[in-house]
């Protein structure tokens, strides 16, 4: 089975979706899900269906917008796009995450030293 997949922390999926949309522009649900899987190297445990709850949540906050359209291979799909408000939020959240990750890294590093 190899290494166990990572369970997603509450709220992290929203941020991933937001970042994906910011990077890829307009995209449908499947595209977003695939993209996250690819970027994470299939390390996260993602039921693709759960992405839709995240999309609704982001829409309710006005961070993304949605519209039905046609894909390259001529399939009807709902396309999502990040809004201005969403970009602002993304910048904030990303900064927050980076700070948190940095702090966590340092804290964990300290513990290893102490253990020696």
């Amino acid at each position, binding site marked *: 089975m190899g290494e166990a997949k990572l369970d997603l922390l509450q709220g992290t999926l929203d941020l991933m979706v937001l970042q994906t949309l910011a990077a890829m522009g307009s995209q449908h649900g*499947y595209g977003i899900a695939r993209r996250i899987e690819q970027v994470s190297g299939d390390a996260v445990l993602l039921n*693709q269906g*759960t992405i839709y*709850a995240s999309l609704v949540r982001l829409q*309710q906050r006005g961070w993304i917008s949605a519209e039905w359209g046609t894909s390259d291979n001529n*399939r009807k799909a*709902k396309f999502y796009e990040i809004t201005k408000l969403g970009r602002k939020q993304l910048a904030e959240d990303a900064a927050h995450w980076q700070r948190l990750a940095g702090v966590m890294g340092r804290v964990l590093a300290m513990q290893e030293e102490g253990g020696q």
Partner: protein
Amino acid sequence: MIDSMRRTLHRLRSFFGKEPLDRELTAEFASHLDFAIDENLRRGMSPQEARRQAMIRFGGVEQAKEQHRETRGLPSLDIFLQDLRYTLRTLRRDRAFTIVAVLILALGIGANIVVFSVVSTILLRPLPFRDPQQLTWIAPPPQSCGMSCATYSADGYEEFRAQSKSYQDVTGYMAFSTADNLRLTGHGEPVPATGIEVIGNFFQVLGVQPAMGRLFTPDEARHGASPVVLLADHWWRRQFSADPAIVGKKIDLNGTPVTVIGVLPTSFDFGAVFSPGARIDAFTPEVLDDERQWGNIVTMIGRLKPGVSVSQAWAEATIVAPNLYFNVKHPETLGRYKDAIIPVPLKDYVSGRLRRSLIVLWCAVGLILLIVCVNLSNLLLARTASRTREFAMRTALGASRGRLVRQLLTESLVLSGAGAILGLGFAFALITWLAHQGSIALPLLSSIKVDGVALVWTILIAIAAAVLFGLAPGLKMSSGNLQEALKDSGPGTSEGKKHERIRGALVISEVALACVLLIGAGLLMRSFLKVLDIDLGFQPEHAASIKLDYDDSAPSEEASVAKRSVIFQQVLERVRALPGVEGAGIADFLPLGQNRAWGTPTPKGKTYPEGSLPGPLVYVVTPGFVEAMGMRLHGRDFAWSDNSKSERVVLINSSAARFFWPGEDAAGKVLTDGDRDLHVVGVVDDIHADSVEGQPGWQIYYPVLQAGPEGAQLVIRTSLPPAALSGSVLHALRELNPKQPAAEFRPIRTIVDRAVSPRRFFVLLVTVFAEFGLLLATLGIYGVISYSVAQQTQEIGIRMALGATQGHVLRGVLQKTMLLAVTGIVLGTVASLVVARWIASLLFGTAPTDPATFAAMIFVMTIVALVAGYIPARRAARIDPMVALRGN
């Protein structure tokens, strides 16, 4: 803020637009899968495998949809609606249960709304005046000489007003006006009306603005000013058809044209605040200059300056009071009001006496609600018992415990909500009726209504009740053992002991609560009967009174007396000649109505320290009055020959007689009021002149030809029902005096009834509550016992098949009933002993531990419990063993 608003909006939209959103979601999911399948195909999978892999990666479609719905909509509301639909369905199926439950709740909640409205109107709501917390009632400490000792003289009032610094202003009104003291003419037959004189600044001090026109000016309260009147709203509407142009018009009151200067607002009801049970139609300015020699006549009401407390005002009053003159022309009257000026908050004066009663009432009705809740808890428990399997099934299918409790609470909320709505209907009807009960002498009652506060209260108690009666069965239900419940074959096997114990405890508490109510009500009822049993000193039955209009104005005192003598003799002669009339007499005041005192005459030759004797209440009466009232007289009655030329005579009551001449016959003795001798010609038994429940003080009677009566009340004793005489009496009076208004013909009984009406009101309510509580407790016992009989049908069948007789079974069930009932009664009796001590101050002539009441109520409770248990016991005894055994 905007963010959360947008989200709520979204959620609301999603909540209402479920179907299109679901369709869209399905389409989106389908396209998602198509993309995935396409990709998998491109990777070279077979179509089947491509589809399978796509589905795996997607995860559960239904879960994703559910998650989506929960995120986008209002899941809790969704669940609530789901529960609601389910509840309505199950309640409709169980119609008998629903009707009983809603009805019980409606009665319980309705009673609570009514009592809350009464309490809120009388106790909680501020008085309907501007800044009512500043208003104080200023009166001497209570004494036995009636209103004359509860009021102040014109000079006393003015002095106090000038010297006190605590008040923005002080006002008052004439305390001695009687009902129907005005005669409105010029509108066909003379119409009786009730007016009161108020000190000129009365409305300004209370902060009452006229709805039309203006208030009195200082000039209008001076001697010789042209007469003016302010109309009460109800009189203006009824008598003057709400004439919008009434201001400035002249109306004829007591034969004098009086200018209407304004109409008071609907919200101002003088009687409701100052004289419960009375209705005041018109207000005239009191001319104090004319009344300086009249003694104590006005009440005092003060408006405190901002920041001045009542106790500060009292402290100041004790300093000011000794410097006040009763009459400035008489220096020796300085200091008569020493220690006799005590301000209390006006609100306390108006409703303070009722506080205890109302709180008791409130508690009683709270008990009722508690009993209702216990009862419903029991009903629901019985119901959930039969639904055990339904719930076990739902748990097995994945419902969480919280979800089940929630479902059950929704059911209780629906029940209590329906009960509250129906109860509100009951309450509304009852309160509307109460508001029009002029005969209940409770202050502010006319302004009672179901207001916003009462609605909030209703919602609160409905929710509290729902939680109270829904939680126990809910927890009980959802904590059951799933396995056992599913295996349980339901009826037939005896239920677990635990379940029965809960129901037993509920019934016991119900019986105990009902017992407390019943004993409390019993004590109050007995007190009320004792009050009705009081020997009033006169016979209220078969007698009636009517306010008599007469005019004895004459240039000289002597001529006036002569005129009065003729008028009164004529009237009495005519009335006595009417068929059915057994006696008639006239007095200026009637017992339990207005009263006054004129100082204390003492036996000639004896001296008493000033102020050591109570002032007797004074009645100015004609010959025949004592007999017409049904008073008991020793000695002789007055005669028409007791006039201004003969020696002065009086009647005194037996309390005064016993005090002055203990062990001797007072008739024939002589009193003196300082300058004149008063020959006591007879002694009248004490009458309850001031209040029904209080101890009678002293009374003295003067003949109408030797003292000036203030108005005249014609009293008639009859063998017929008093109402039957009203037409012929009025007709006779009109023949003698066309100006006689159609004043109210009041049976004396109604005067007594009005005096005891607050007690009657409370007793009636508490008794109704107690009966309701008893009924509920009975239902509770019946429900539990008959349920347990039904549960044990098989068991009983077996026992009977093995030889148990019908008597055995009957006794067994009854024993079980009595165990519950007796435990409840014992607990309830112990609690009652505590409660009774607490309501002791409301009892009259009844000890809080009155054995008769306790015994009677315990007996009633036991009998009722026996009956409630006997019905199912009989059913149990009649079980046919064969049928019972075949049953399952």
